[in-house]
């Protein structure tokens, strides 16, 4: 069986990829997917640590995080659709009408 540290390491890598994706990518949907990757990295870490501590609570938290992520998707996609209707684009670099 793989040691738990591998899982934690993988979750850290996933989190870093997600955070970089948010900073580098310019398409709102892809940025949003990167954020989901960060949340799921946290889920993986939760489950792995729950195994280390033999505490079920860690696995329960994953359900909370999944629920919150679903709520965020509902609002986020609605916003992105509303903007696409207006601008025919969801490139965040084109969202620069607010400046100063």
């Amino acid at each position, binding site marked *: 069986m793989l040691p738990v540290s591998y899982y934690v390491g993988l979750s850290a890598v996933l989190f870093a990829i*997600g955070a970089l994706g948010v900073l580098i990518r310019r398409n709102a949907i892809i940025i949003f997917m990167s954020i989901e990757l960060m949340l799921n*990295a946290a889920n993986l*870490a939760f489950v792995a640590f729950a195994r280390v501590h033999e*505490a079920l609570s860690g696995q329960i938290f994953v359900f909370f995080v999944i629920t919150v992520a679903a709520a965020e998707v509902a609002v*986020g996609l609605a916003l992105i659709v509303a903007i696409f209707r207006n601008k025919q684009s969801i490139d965040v670099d084109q969202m620069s009408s607010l400046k100063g």
Partner: protein
Amino acid sequence: MTSTDLLSILPITVLVAWACVLLLVDVFTKKNKWLTPLLAAVGLCAALGISIAQSGNIYAGFKGMVVVDGFTAYLNILFAASGLAGIALAFDYNKRMGLDRGEYYVLLLFSISGMMLMAAATDLIVVFLALELLSIPLYVLAGFARPNPDSEEAALKYFLLGAFAGGFVVYGVALAFGATGSTSLGAILAAVNTGSADLTLLVIGAGLIIVGFGFKVAVVPFQMWTPDVYHGAPSAVTAFMAVGAKAAGFAALLRVFVAALPTLYQEIVPIMWVLAALTMIVGNIVAIAQSNIKRLLAYSSIAHAGYIFMSLVTFGQAEVAPDGVAAALFYLLAYAVTNFGAWGVVIALEKAEGKGLELDDYAGLGRKYPALAAAMAVFMLSFTGVPPTLGFVGKFFLFRTVLEAGFVGLALIGVLTSLISAYYYLRVLVVMYMRDGQPDVSRPVLLRLTTGLTAVGTVVLSIVSVPLFRWASQAVLRLF
């Protein structure tokens, strides 16, 4: 579930249930547009009454995941009052801007219930849930002026950055759980004290939590969304968001670091020192260049986040920390009163399609509308920290505790940046009183009432500030 469990979440339950009822009410009252805001205000008054009745008692519920203590009660009162002010500012503004939809007030109630949960949370997972419960309605509110592109852009920026910040918080919570085997603040403290915790992991987790909440309360270098979101969102939303989201963010930061991590003080305090100093400097200096009043107030809000963040550097010093938290609570109150007043004036001058928001539009206000200009002058002086205003007293208590904790350099930066801030706040006064112009103002009754009450409050409360500060000090006693 016991009765203490119910009592510990009573104001939150009342608000959530009432908001669900209002969703229905709104469907059946298409003609009487005043009913939903009125009922929302009634619900907030009920929550306010419960919170006042609860102050002085302690209810720990759900196996210690939430607690109602003085700290919670103080903040609940602040949140409920902010909600009332938010409704008062929004009522006529929404009609004028064509945003007259009942969901507005429902979302406001949901967001406030999240803030109250944040103040009560004593478990990191509840902190995370509360953070999302308060943020998600705010994302929608920021885009409430849809299909106005500015409002949509503000909502998307707020949403993406807010969700990004949420990712940092939840990963920080996961690491804290990994380091200690629990997410309960008390258990984390116990694990650190008995030496069973992995300190490296815990410090990284705490750092990620600071980053996440740094986004939420707009601390430099995580502030880049603030001016755009404050500018693009409807002004009534911005006024509420500036107070509510900031107070809730600081509530979580104060509770988490004071209750769970005082033993890591030496490792964490340099980060906080740098963040507070950077925020005060950048917020105040960039604000000088602003000519749009909404952006000016946005940078001012960043600067004030820096001042409040200063109180966090005391979190691990057992003798000073209670004063530090009390000073932060008092400053939040001072900021709330001043901020709602200032945004009330902004709303009075704002026209459709983002007109009436430039500083030049304030020219001649002193001659044509002396009362409104005088109120704005009071708010600007309070933001600067000139006596006799709440802003001055708040800064006084804050700087005093920072000096007590031995951070002379930080206090000095605070005083110097306050001096810089005088330049741009006083510029508003100069434009209002020294230049001629024909300002066009709409002043419905509720708006007059809000600006009038907050202006009087800013001055009068500063005179009776000692009992107020004592109230804040008593509120934090049980934290330690």
